[in-house]
Structure formats: C-alpha cells, structure tokens
C-alpha cells in the first residue's frame, strides 16, 4: 500500500515526525479499540470515530501553547487525546464508568477537561461555534494572547449560528481559529449535495475573515497552516478560517452502513492519502527510523490502548447517588 505513494521530502525534524507518528497512531488504535468495545456492548449509544482524520488535530495541536483553548463537536475522541487528556479517562467515559472524565454522565459526545482547556464535546451540530467564540471573547476580555481553536464539520458549516458567529468574531476581532473539518460527508449527505459554494472557507470572505483550504491528510501542511493562523490571531488580527480537506474511513457513527459512498472510494483514500502512512514513509525513507523502530512504537501504543480498555472495563459503574450530583454548582 504505502509503496504506491510518493512522500515529499520534509525539513521537519526527526523528533517532530516521530511525535506526529506516535500521536496519530495513538488516536487510530484508540478508535479501533473503541469500535471493538462498542461491538461488545461495552460502549453504548452514539459513538463517532475519528479514524482517517488524525492529521487534523495532531497538526493543529503542534501550533498551540499553554492556555490555548479547544472545543469541538461529538466526534471528539481524537481532539481529547491530541491535547493530552488521559486515554484511560476517555475510554472509561466511553464505557460510562465512574473514572471517566465526566464520571460516566457525559459519554462519547460530552467530555471536558478544564486542566487541558478542552471545552467539549457538543452534540448539537454547530452549537460549539459560538461557544468557541465565547472562549475567545473571554480571553480578549481578560487581555491575554490565548487562541481558541473551534472545530466543526462540513455539515455544521450550513448552520446559521456559524455565520452569526463569523460576523461577531470579525466585528470584535476575536482570537479564534475556525477549523472546518471537511470530511466530505455530513452523516450521509455529501458536500456536493448540500452546499452550493465551491469551498466552505471562502464563505468567510463575506464577513471579512481570511482563510484557506489545507490538505488535512498531511500533518505537516496542517501544522504550517495552523502556525500561520495562530500568528494572525495572537497579533490581535483574528479570526482565521482553516478548511481541512480530510476523510473519515468509518461510518458517521457506529450504526452507519455508509451506502452513500463506494468501498472503492474509501479504499483509494486509505491507499493513497493515509496520514499515518505518510509520516511513516517520511520517517523510513528519510532514514530517521527503521521498520523495527516503528514496530517498537506500535507495540507501546497498543499496550497503552489495551491498558486504557482494561481500565475502562474494570472501573465501576457510577454510584446511583451520582444521578443527583452536578446539577447545580
């Protein structure tokens, strides 16, 4: 598979490449395990996997500093792992146990970490966009130089509140990077069937917001674009829009038979554009790592993910008294 690709040469350091490889593989293995636990009935309800889109969050996170905030939709496991949240706590939330980030009361779509400045985990499509602008509003109000990374999909990009937010974000010069994760499909509806404009990022122009499209399967391209966008926002010249052209390999959620696209289309993306294979090739062909070096990493990650799964299975169900806590502060 990988041999068919022609990786570009990279000036990125070995350390950075190894870091990207490790983080992206971590998300992928975690998500595969989550899919497996779902199949065993250990995870219930809705569960939206991030497989295929790993380069987006890993590349964006590479451009952040302490204090920056992030918020996203319900396809949120990758974002949590990428910002440093503990895979054990995330997996235990997926299994609805007391050691989960939300004590089992949030689930796959609703996790938060004040410590890592991760503001959820939101299940209403598009609602996280004004919320993310609110995070940026607070930082501007408090006079720091933090940036808010607000992720949403091509589906959310047709919600009215996104454009209400664009207007106010530019009017008030909020330090926010809007990251559109365009994976081509809003559940079963392709962008072509839902959106008249050729791109999503260019809609920002109507509000005076700068932006660009980015190869969201290439973590190096994502990082470079994110650094540019962050610099604009930190200098007080935000907001900025990044439209990440990406792809999800799995269905919209676990119960999606994905009949709206062909198996060949999915396979072609896996073969030609896989973000992890891309970095793997850069590492091997650049002489930074041998296959054996990478196997060691693979094993470590598998062990971490398995430990998270065991932790999530062993963590107790929340006590019934938890039903009545955390309703009011």
């Amino acid at each position, binding site marked *: 598979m990988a041999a068919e690709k022609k990786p570009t040469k990279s000036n990125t350091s070995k350390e950075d490449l190894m870091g990207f490889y490790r983080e992206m593989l971590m998300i992928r293995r975690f998500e*595969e395990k989550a899919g497996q636990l779902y199949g065993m009935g*250990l995870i219930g309800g809705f569960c939206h996997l991030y497989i295929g889109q790993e380069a987006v969050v890993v590349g964006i996170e590479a451009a952040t500093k302490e204090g920056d905030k992030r918020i996203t939709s319900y396809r949120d496991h990758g974002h949590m792992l990428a910002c440093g949240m503990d895979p054990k706590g995330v997996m235990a939330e997926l299994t609805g146990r007391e050691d989960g980030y939300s004590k089992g009361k949030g689930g796959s779509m609703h996790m938060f970490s004040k410590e890592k400045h991760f503001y959820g985990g939101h299940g209403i499509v598009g609602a996280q966009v004004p919320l993310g*602008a609110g995070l940026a509003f607070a930082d501007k*109000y*408090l006079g720091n130089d933090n940036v808010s990374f607000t992720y949403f999909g091509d589906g959310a990009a047709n919600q009215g509140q996104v454009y209400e937010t664009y207007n106010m974000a530019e009017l008030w010069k909020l330090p926010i990077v809007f990251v559109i994760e365009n994976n081509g499909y809003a559940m079963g509806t392709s962008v072509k069937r839902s959106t008249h404009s050729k791109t999503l990022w260019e809609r920002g122009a109507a509000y005076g917001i700068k932006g660009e499209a980015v190869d969201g399967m290439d973590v190096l391209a994502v990082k470079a674009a994110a650094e540019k966008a962050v610099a604009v926002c930190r200098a007080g010249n935000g907001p900025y829009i990044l439209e990440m052209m990406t792809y999800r390999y*799995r269905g919209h959620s*676990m119960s999606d038979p994905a009949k709206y696209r062909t198996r060949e289309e999915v396979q072609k993306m896996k073969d030609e554009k896989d973000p992890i294979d891309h970095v793997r090739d850069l590492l091997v062909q650049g002489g930074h790592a041998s296959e054996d070096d990478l196997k060691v990493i693979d094993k470590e990650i598998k062990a971490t993910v398995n430990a998270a799964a065991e932790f999530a299975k062993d963590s107790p169900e929340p006590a019934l008294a938890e039903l009545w806590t955390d309703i009011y502060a």
Partner: protein
Amino acid sequence: MAIQILMPALSPTMEEGTLAKWLVKEGDTVKSGQIMAEIETDKATMEFEAVDEGIVGKILIAEGTANVKVNTPICVLVEEGESADDVKAAPAAKTLTNDEQATDSKEENLPRGKGSAAKSAPVAVKSNASPDWPEGTPMKTMTVREALREAMSEEMRANDRVYLMGEEIGEYQGAYKISQGMLDEFGPKRVVDTPITEHGFAGIAVGSAFAGLNPIVEFMTFNFALQAIDHLLNSAAKTLYMSGGQMGCPIVFRGANGAAARVGAQHSQCFAAWYAAVPGLKVVMPYSAADAKGLLKQAIRDPNPVIFLENEIMYGKSFEVPDLPDFTIPFGKARIWREGTDVTIISFGIGMTYALEAADKLAEDGISAEVIDLRTLRPLDYDTVLASVMKTNRCVTVEEGWPVGAIGNHLSATIMERAFDYLDAPVINCTGKDVPMPYAAGLEKHALITTAEVVEAVKSVCYR
C-alpha cells in the same frame, strides 16, 4: 495468542443479527481495518472490520446464519504457528443488566422527583419567615426599572468579570431603558452592543462563562430568546452535569417576559413554566422592585445559569426598596405579602397584581386571603406553600401563562401529594387562556387573567 472475534453490536439497540457474508476465509491473513464480514442488522447491512491482526484460524459461524446473538464468538484469529483450538475464551463483555443495577438503588433515598413526594405525606412543614432585610432599614421609593439597573451596576462595580451583553443596551441606552447610563459608566468593553443575532450572542456569552466570565445577557424580550433557547438549555443548563461537575456556567439571561400591551401573539408569551421545567437552570420572576434588585444581585453572584423573567408593564411601577449599600434576596424563599386564614392565593411576577387586588376585594366580602409571591420558580419554596395551605385548607394559583403544563398545575399536584388531607376544596389554577395572544384590546384583556376571575375562583373554593 489466539483471539476470539465476537459478533459485534452495530447500533445502540442491536441484540442479534445475520452473518450475511464472510469476506475472509480460513488461512487468510487479516490486517487491522480490513473488512472481514458483512452483517445485517434490523436496519442495514454493515461491514465489520478487523481490529487485531492475525490469521483466520477458524470460522465458527457460517455465512447466512440468522439470529446470531451479540457477543457470540464468530471466528478465531491466530498467530503464525498457532492452532485455532488453542483459543482461550475471550472474557464476555461485562454489562450490568437492569436488575443488577436496580439492587444498588433499593435503599437509596432519592432526594427529589417522583417517589419522594408520596413518602413525605402530611408532615409538619415550616416556612422560613425571616425578614428579607433588618427591621428599621430606611427605605426609598424606586421603580422596577431603576432597581434592575442598580442591581447590575452595583455588581459590575464589585466584580470586573461581570459584563452586560445584548441588543440596544449601550448607545441606544436600552430598548426599555433598563441599562440607561451604563455604557457611560462601564464603557463598551463591559456593555457590549450586539447585532440582532440572539442565537449567536447567547452562545458566545455561554462560552465566555465556561471560560470564567460572568455575563448578563439581556434579551430585548424573551420571545426572541426562542432563537437562542438551544444554548440556554443544551449548552448552559446541562454542561455542569455532562462534565461531571468540572465546568459550570455562571450566567444570567434576563429581559421582558409575558404580555405587554397589544403587541400581538409573537411578542406576548410567558415562559415561566417552560424554563422552570429544566434541571440545571434557576428561574426567577420578581414582582416588586425590592425583589427585582435583591434577586438580580443574587442571580449575578450565583454560579449557575439563571433565567430572570421581567415584565414590561412592571418596569415603571414603584415600590419601597431598602436603602442599603448591598442586599440580596436568597433563591427558594417565597414572600408572604398578606397573611390570611381562609384561602391561599399563590402567584409570582405580574400575576401578583391580580392576586393582591383580588385579596383586597375579598376582604370586603369577609374572606381572609393569604397571598404568597413565589419569587423564584426553581428552586421553589414548597414549604411556605404547603404550610399556608395546611393552615387555610384552600388554594388558588394565579399566572399569566397558558393552562397546560402551568406552574399552577405543578403546585396543585404537589399539594395533592403532600397535603391532600388538609384540602377542603380542589385547587383552582387561574391562568392565561389557551389561545395565542390577540391584538384587539378587549380580547387581549380577556386572554389574560382578570381580578374578577381570581375573586370568583376564591369564592368557589370557599363555597361562597
């Protein structure tokens, strides 16, 4: 080590399915992510991908088999040189059944909700009758409008994380002049004029509260908050719970609620019962200027989302307000405006106008009515309500909102559950009529409540 592959659950409700087709055969090497089989659920045919790598050692369930239960072993993956017979049984998924979960709850004394009320049938209740401010406090006359403005300004002076956001609140000085002069004092950073974009700015305000600010959002009227209600409920009210207590939302949503005067159906609606239904919100609806001030200051200091329902007609009404540098009124404490012995009239907000007028008229007929202003609908002062009804044995509720799912309905149910034996007559709910608000003056008057209707209801429960 050989691994058993189990029949997967492929939807939130799937219990069994048909193994429609194998896409691998015994002896094949599979990679993580490779499609192994097609499985039919009740809704669709799904592809089933391998998670682990290995060699297909043995297929246990033949293709075409129907009604395969979730978690049944369907094949065995082995490593090079291993036999499928070496397989160790995979640990079965440990999910608690409803019965098992229920055992935990048997001794649980649920503090709220269904099941708790019945157990606490007639017991002595005592209302908190402590005064809202010390006796002898000097008073000043003030309109509700001025009281609201003073409350916000005092809290903004005390805490620089409190800011006001909304339409026409700054340069225009407020559509109803509540925020008059505040832009001059606090500047545009803290008195933020927004475009007409309720959904968007409500979301921005909630996000800023997540990040540590204390926003006051003014909706020109709560009718327009319908455009933003997703953020009030899904974003503001639920996040503390969904985050396991990590992330709260200290925010106040305030503005005019209910009917004004002849502004038609879309601008005349009471949302008290709507918001009072939502756990995670606190809901305030003051009547007097003193309560408006003390409760709004309390709302701004509260670490939870507060819905603060005002009324345009009340803005210009004057009341005595304590002349104190700082006072607040706690939530969940009703005020007894008038003590009486024959009947309890319970109301809140502008409904109090009818309740108090009715009590005056009833006194002329020799009926002594106790009038209670709930002041906050969530939390609700059940004790004061029940103590009064246990004393008077009769109750009439008064509100301008619609009759179905009204606050009065909830009070009736609570009184029935907890004070049934004390009642000498059924509780009557006086509400607005079950119609959209008409424009014509005469029709509008009758779509709302009239004092005469309250008087009639009281006479009815007193059998007079």
